């Protein structure tokens, strides 16, 4: 294996709880790899093992060619890690936080000032550098976290749900920064609960109950879903869901806000049948049309069929 990040049968057991069960992958330099999965799937545990924070119970992982267990010390210089619980020193200023990480990563001399200035600008924090980190907005904290994790210019970044609880605009900004890093050739391993973010990854792994159940490009994963997707907009969601579930040729029904997403074997013929059945049941239909499945639908569909 020649990848930037490779894992072979990586497993972690906490007492009786098998949090990660034999996970393997091979990630090429420059990829953005997204790990998605429900709460407790084992994403954090996987990342902690890859970043060398925790030793696996079984299996091995290599990052940048270094073994994460035996060469954990050397690895530190080449990886950046933002923990899910990531936190800054709230009583230190933005600048002091970055300076502290610069110091302990041994970024000294002329490079230090130049790099800190560049990172502050990069993370769009240069105007806030004297502000206490504790009073920054959620999005700014995450950006500062990223700046601190990247102070030593690592080749690999592990980010564990870095945008959790951040507003959509800040999330977009955060991803813009990640794109810049991607262009610079940094390999990014990111876990996220937002499936729209997963669409921006070069490859996605679906993690479920400690295993990676599917892996591929977002496009490929979307196509794993059986059948066609129909979107039905109706004010009578409850009736529509009950009726649709019982019709022939229906794989799955998901409810999204004011609409119903129905996976069927043949879109064109089934649309007509569903419409008739729903009207007969007394439901008003505002619209019924074929739709392209997002990763979100694909993901729920895949998991519910396990």
């Amino acid at each position, binding site marked *: 294996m020649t990848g930037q990040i490779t894992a072979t049968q990586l497993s972690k057991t906490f007492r009786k709880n098998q949090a990660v069960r034999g996970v393997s992958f091979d990630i090429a330099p420059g990829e953005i790899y997204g790990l998605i999965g429900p709460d407790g799937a084992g994403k954090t545990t996987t990342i902690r093992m890859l970043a060398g924070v925790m030793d696996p119970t079984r299996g091995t992982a290599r990052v940048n060619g270094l073994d994460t267990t035996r060469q954990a010390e050397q690895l530190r210089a080449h990886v950046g890690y933002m*923990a899910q619980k990531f936190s800054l*020193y709230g009583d230190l200023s933005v600048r002091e936080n970055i300076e502290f990480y610069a110091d302990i990563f041994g970024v000294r001399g002329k490079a230090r000032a130049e790099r800190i200035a560049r990172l502050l600008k990069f993370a769009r924090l240069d105007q806030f550098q004297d502000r206490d980190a504790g009073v920054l907005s959620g999005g700014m904290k995450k950006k500062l976290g990223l700046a601190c994790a990247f102070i030593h210019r690592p080749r690999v970044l592990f980010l564990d749900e870095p945008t959790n609880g951040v507003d959509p605009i800040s999330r977009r900004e955060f991803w813009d920064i990640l794109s810049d890093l991607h262009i610079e050739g940094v390999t990014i391993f990111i876990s996220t609960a937002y499936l729209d973010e997963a669409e921006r990854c070069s490859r996605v792994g679906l993690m479920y109950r400690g295993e990676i159940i599917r892996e591929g490009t977002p496009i490929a994963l979307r196509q794993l879903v059986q059948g066609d997707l129909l979107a039905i907009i109706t004010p009578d969601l409850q009736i529509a869901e009950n009726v649709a579930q019982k019709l022939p040729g229906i794989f799955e029904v998901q409810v999204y806000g004011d609409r119903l997403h129905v996976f069927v074997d043949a879109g064109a013929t089934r649309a007509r049948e569903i419409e008739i059945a729903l009207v007969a049941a007394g439901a008003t239909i505002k619209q019924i049309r074929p739709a392209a499945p997002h990763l979100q639908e694909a993901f729920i569909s895949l998991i519910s069929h396990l």
Partner: protein
Amino acid sequence: MHKTILNLAWKETLQLLRDRLLLAFMVIIPVVQLGLIAEATGAGIRNIKLAVWDQDKSAFSRDLVTALKNSGDFNLMYYAQSYDEIRALVNDGKVGAAVIIPPDFSRELARTGASATLPVIIDGTNSIVASSLLGAVESAIADLTRQFVPANAIITPIDLKIEFAFNATLNIRWSTIVTQLGFITYQLVLVVAAVGFVRERELGTLEQLAVTPISRLELLLGKGLMALGIGMLNYTLLYLAIRYGFEIPMRGNLALLMALGVLFTIAEIGVGTLLSIVTHSQQQAILMVFMLAMLEVTFSGYLVPTENMPWFMQTIANFSPLQHFSAILRAVYIKGSSLEMLWHHVIPLAALTGITVGAGWYLFNRAEW
């Protein structure tokens, strides 16, 4: 490697300087504590109940009793007729102090070149009260001496022979205040060290440090260094306050006092670090500190001399760094003891330091990030 340790210690110092609560704890508590102790042990206590057994029955002895009565500090309650009666009054707590005027007191005093002995019994149950009783008796007698002995005569001092009932050790005001030097340093260092790791764990920054080139040893040393610096700064300032503010003369070797202060501070950093590793929140850690402090103060011989405790309590007291250090402080500062006279406290203290630091290191190495 040492550079990283300094970086960490600097970060810790910056944080400490911004932690108002901790700063208040560092500054206010010592001031209040020292002030209260000074007040309690100073001339604060009035109307001390006094018993007198006048065997002399001379004009002079009657004047002496009157002078004590009029000094304002004493409330003469009993004229006793025997030593047993005096003892009983003190033992039953009916009086706080008793003066025994020997039969030939005035004749002795009149003889030039000799000094007259005046036995005084003081209730030593509470060392703080006892020291103020002593202070009051001492100053009353000093006034009398000036009053009765003509200025042109060769002054024959009255030799007070103090006996502390219940209290074998001489726990005077000085030793009470000097003991504070240990107590306050103890509290401060323990809190700073106990919060050290658990705070970062609670925040989530410890996991972040895990992926930096900082090793566990450097982390331990960096945090320990900061606590040592704070502790010794505090120790030095308190020493200056006691030495020059309270004007308590230091009889021992200053270098020895400082060196043993460093040893004690390291022992407490070890204890604090242990607490910081085994607890899950800052709150828990602080609670543990308070519980431990209550125990250790009890065992330190501050309220009841360790020698007067039952054997099992004395055994436990042997495991308290504070107990050993309190004894060391009193011995070095007040009595001017040298290292050779203190091995029985210094060796256990050094051993406890080794054990706590070693255990902290062992557990920290095995702890999850």
